[in-house]
């Protein structure tokens, strides 16, 4: 029985950037399996239609849309600021970077300046978000290898500490609605900054612990090394961004390339992978987490006193001049961009989100072909997606 008929109707597969045609050895019938909606370690409501020759994956088609609520249409129906709380719900693991990307795009559209202190706050919160995301991603990886619960809870223990910091400054653990066009909503108290320092001091030890888990475990190495290899040329052509791209050895970090906000003031390195396999993707995340500790440390030392909102920023009757702008940041999952077209009205004429999670999935089939079913779950997890952002 065919699930979606995709095995019969083959799409056009010529061209170097298309997935190769896999032939079965002809000894047995192909088995079609709908993996999902749900399970593949429950990153969300997502389905992969897989054609199997025994254990080997012959074809794979991702199916999206279970969480689709047409976020972009909603954004066009309300004021610019009205969409800000909704961006929290895109990638709900890292709401602050979503806020940041949207604020950055609108600031590009209107030429709005951001005060120093607000930029530092954004960097601190953005990098804390990156730590949360990467720690959880590694926790999920080990969960997908079968160690259910415990390693993930190590990551969630740290995540909870950071979410407490978010709650202290924004009032919410996840649905933060924190950034504004031209600054931030709430100022940080000295006590809050001291609390960040305290959490930060505990993080390197946690990273060491996790690194031991990754580097010391034979099971992790056997399962992750050499699995789901992504070639750098294909990664670039397929628009893969973030840790996935850098694990394939391509040096592209938007914090370095664009130097948006105040990132050119901080010293940090961009870790790169050699093999582009699942193992590299997680080592990159671990190393990036360590660089983030350094950035937070520098930002805490350098944060100046001053306002957190540009006093000239227009809050009521906000109507940007006609025109368009594309603003992007290096989100924890990849390039998160917002494309806005203004027609001079109070609502954006077009409000588009460039979701890194969705575009990173373009190469899912290429990475999975020829591998075992059990590895598909692992490879899928190594893309690190959140369905709130994939389906929008």
């Amino acid at each position: 029985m065919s699930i979606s008929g995709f095995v019969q109707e083959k799409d056009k597969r010529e061209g170097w950037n298309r997935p190769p045609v896999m032939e079965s050895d002809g000894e047995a019938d192909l088995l079609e399996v709908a993996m999902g909606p749900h399970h593949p370690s429950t990153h969300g409501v997502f389905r992969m239609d897989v054609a199997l020759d025994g254990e080997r994956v012959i074809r794979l088609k991702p199916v999206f849309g279970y969480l689709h609520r047409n976020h972009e249409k909603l954004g066009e129906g309300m004021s610019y600021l009205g969409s800000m709380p909704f961006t929290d719900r895109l990638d709900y693991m890292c709401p602050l970077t979503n806020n940041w990307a949207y604020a950055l795009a609108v600031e590009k559209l209107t030429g709005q300046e951001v005060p120093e202190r607000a930029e530092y706050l954004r960097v601190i919160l953005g990098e804390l978000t990156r730590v949360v995301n990467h720690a959880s991603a590694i926790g999920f990886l080990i969960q997908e290898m079968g160690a259910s619960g415990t390693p993930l809870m190590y990551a969630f223990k740290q995540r909870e500490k950071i979410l407490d910091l978010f709650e202290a400054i924004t009032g919410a653990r996840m649905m933060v609605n924190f950034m504004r066009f031209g600054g931030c909503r709430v100022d940080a108290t000295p006590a809050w900054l001291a609390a960040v320092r305290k959490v930060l001091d505990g993080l390197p030890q946690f990273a060491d612990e996790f690194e031991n888990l990754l580097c010391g475990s034979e099971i992790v190495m056997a399962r992750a090394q050499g699995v789901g290899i992504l070639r750098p040329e294909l990664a670039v052509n397929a628009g893969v961004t973030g840790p996935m791209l850098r694990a394939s050895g391509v040096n592209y970090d938007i914090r370095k390339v664009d130097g948006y906000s105040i990132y050119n003031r901080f010293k940090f390195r961009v870790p790169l992978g050699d093999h582009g396999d699942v193992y590299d993707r997680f080592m990159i995340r671990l190393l990036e987490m360590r660089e983030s500790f350094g950035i937070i440390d520098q930002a805490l030392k350098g944060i100046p006193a001053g306002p957190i909102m540009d006093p000239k920023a227009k809050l009521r009757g906000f109507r940007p001049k006609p025109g368009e702008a594309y603003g992007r940041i290096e989100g924890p999952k990849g390039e998160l961009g917002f494309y806005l077209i203004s027609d001079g009205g109070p609502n954006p004429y077009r409000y588009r989100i460039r979701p890194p999670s969705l575009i990173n999935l373009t190469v899912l089939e290429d990475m999975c072909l020829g591998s075992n079913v059990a590895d598909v779950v692992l490879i899928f997890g190594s893309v690190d997606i959140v369905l709130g952002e994939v389906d929008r």
Partner: protein
Amino acid sequence: MGLKTVEEIKAAIEAAVPGAGVEIVPNPSVSAQHSLRLKPETAVAVATFLRGDAELAFDFLSNATGVDWLDKEVAEKVKVMRWVNREVDGVKELVEETVEETQKRIVPGYLEAVYHLFSITKGHGPVVIRMRTANRTDQMQLPSLTPVWRSAEFQEREIFDLFGIVFTGHPDLRRILMWDEFKDHPMRRDYVEPDDFEYEPTAHDEVLKRALEHAARVAAQTGAGQEGAGA
């Protein structure tokens, strides 16, 4: 960063692809991200050049999206010659005179595909390229750029799904977010939500309005049905 201006890129394209017919679309906002409008016939050749050229090297297609531009009514002042009754030296005469008159004209709408390009090897960007369909009703074909940049694969599927642009040459053009049986294109500006209203216990504002409309429609239908049954 050493990125050329759009004028320079336009010149480079026209030197490499004869008859490319690139047009600069200025962006009045402070972001100053001006775009290049490509003719659909030469778009794939131009895209291949943009990716392959050693100096431009736009190897990374970041964002692809659609925009719906509705039919616009434009009012413009036109000078018209007209015969007017006029008293000249106490004698009524018919005089030819030029009169200014506002005429309304409908500019047909179109669908637009917008692509944001960056270069990973050179570190520059963005360059915005866009293509327009002939209209938004029956001629909505545009060439797919997926063979050039694979990252357009899902994004063009999304544009097809939500806006209705048909990308010729796309390897696997299906709906992506909506289900296959779905008919309309929800991101169109004139999209009307279907009347599939479900029971809402605490309807208010717009939901209440929709609930009442739905109830009225159901009453009208079933009322007509009952009359037929009673007779």
